[in-house]
């Protein structure tokens, strides 16, 4: 065995990574090579010294500084320290607009994915990119639906019971379809068509919720008009 090969084995040997046959070959070499024997001693010493380097402690005020920095950074990079808030529920955007913003982003991404190759992607790279974009779109639809739910919840006036029942049934149907699509996507996360169907149903839910919000608003205006 040449010394260069032996030294690689020496490094593995001190980490106990050698097979029996490698150990035997190394042992045979070391019996005849004092330089490699010295290298073994040096490597052991280096590893021992490295493992024994003193451990330093950070300043006792580190945590306070981190907490302060996270709080300060919140408007730009939402923090888990701000419980229950996400980038679409920050105060700079009214609840009623947040869903539209998220839905618009989702639509742009879907458009991009389709242009890029959802229907006829030419290569694996394009398919992977389209998949990533569809996942992003899904994320924004979920946010849009959440924001829209919040916006509807924040509306003070209720709906006519019969109209509310119609919306309820519609939402139940849409939710059932979403769950079915999600199960298909869960089974094969790389299925572009399944993800596209899922997004279509999400879009459908956004439309139903949007109409529900509009109906509540109209109902509210009607009541205000009657009051005048």
């Amino acid at each position: 065995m040449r010394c260069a090969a032996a030294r690689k084995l020496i490094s593995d040997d001190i980490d106990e990574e050698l097979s029996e046959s490698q150990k035997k070959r190394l042992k045979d070499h070391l019996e005849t090579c004092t330089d490699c024997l010295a290298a073994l001693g040096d490597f052991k010493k280096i590893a021992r010294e490295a493992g024994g380097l003193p451990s330093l402690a950070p300043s006792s005020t580190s945590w306070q500084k981190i907490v302060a920095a996270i709080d300060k950074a919140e408007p730009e990079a939402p923090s888990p320290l701000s419980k229950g808030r996400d980038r679409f529920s920050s105060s700079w955007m009214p609840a009623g607009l947040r869903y539209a913003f998220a839905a618009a982003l989702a639509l742009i991404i879907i458009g991009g994915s389709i242009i890029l190759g959802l229907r006829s992607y030419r290569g694996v790279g394009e398919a992977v990119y389209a998949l990533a974009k569809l996942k992003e779109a899904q994320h924004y639809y979920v946010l849009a639906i959440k924001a829209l739910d919040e916006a509807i919840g924040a509306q003070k006036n209720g709906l006519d019971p019969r109209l509310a029942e119609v919306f309820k049934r519609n939402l139940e149907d849409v939710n059932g379809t979403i769950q079915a699509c999600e199960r298909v996507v869960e089974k094969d996360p790389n299925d572009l068509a399944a993800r596209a169907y899922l997004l279509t149903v999400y879009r459908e839910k956004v439309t139903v919720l949007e109409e529900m919000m509009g109906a509540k608003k109209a109902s509210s205006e009607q009541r205000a008009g009657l009051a005048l």
Partner: protein
Amino acid sequence: MSTVSLAAALVRPLGLRDNGLRIGQAQIAEAFPLMTSEKKEQASSSEIPQSSLYLLIGRSKAGENAAMEEIFEHYKGSLFNLAYRYTYNRQAAEDLLQDIFIKIFTHIGDVQKEETFVAWMYRIALNACYSYLRDKRSRVVGTVALNEVEGRIEEARFDRHEQSLEKPLNEAINELPEKLRTVFLLHDVQGFKHEEIARILGVAVGTSKSQLFKARMRIREFLRGKKYLGEEKK
């Protein structure tokens, strides 16, 4: 601007979807179960049981300050020492530690699988250290870096034993290229195994072993050059 790039431009500032990592979740997904072995410097003496760590992650995601502080207390030592051995400057290591934990806690909601958390955290730390080194290189071209001077002074203070290799070893580590230094620090100083390192860094186990070998060879040459180790016979 195409529709896609327009969408990307609109979306990118809103979040850090890849957690700032250069390796995928899949690569680190298997890393954590192997990370329960003994570590020389990886964490404080009281190892957090995996189930407790998962609970802490969940509570941190829900915004519980006490849970975050507990995670910080447990990992601050190992991450501070890792940062210190990239900077060799206490203040710079303090700043890096803060940046690392700010990033961890502002993006902990992105952690989908708790078992990937530790590897993800170390990857954030390493990326922060690499950024520091790159910034440092760009700042000190043609000049003597103040950090280096400060670092050497600090090291001198830590060199308590005359016969110890501590000071020259730190100098040798400081001379190592980025990748070799990472593997050496993770393996020989922090006590990770090659399989763990390979998964954290997204490289083959053989690459981790060969980089450790190269790192040890360079350190040996450095120490021999400074007469801390014996000369090899010609």
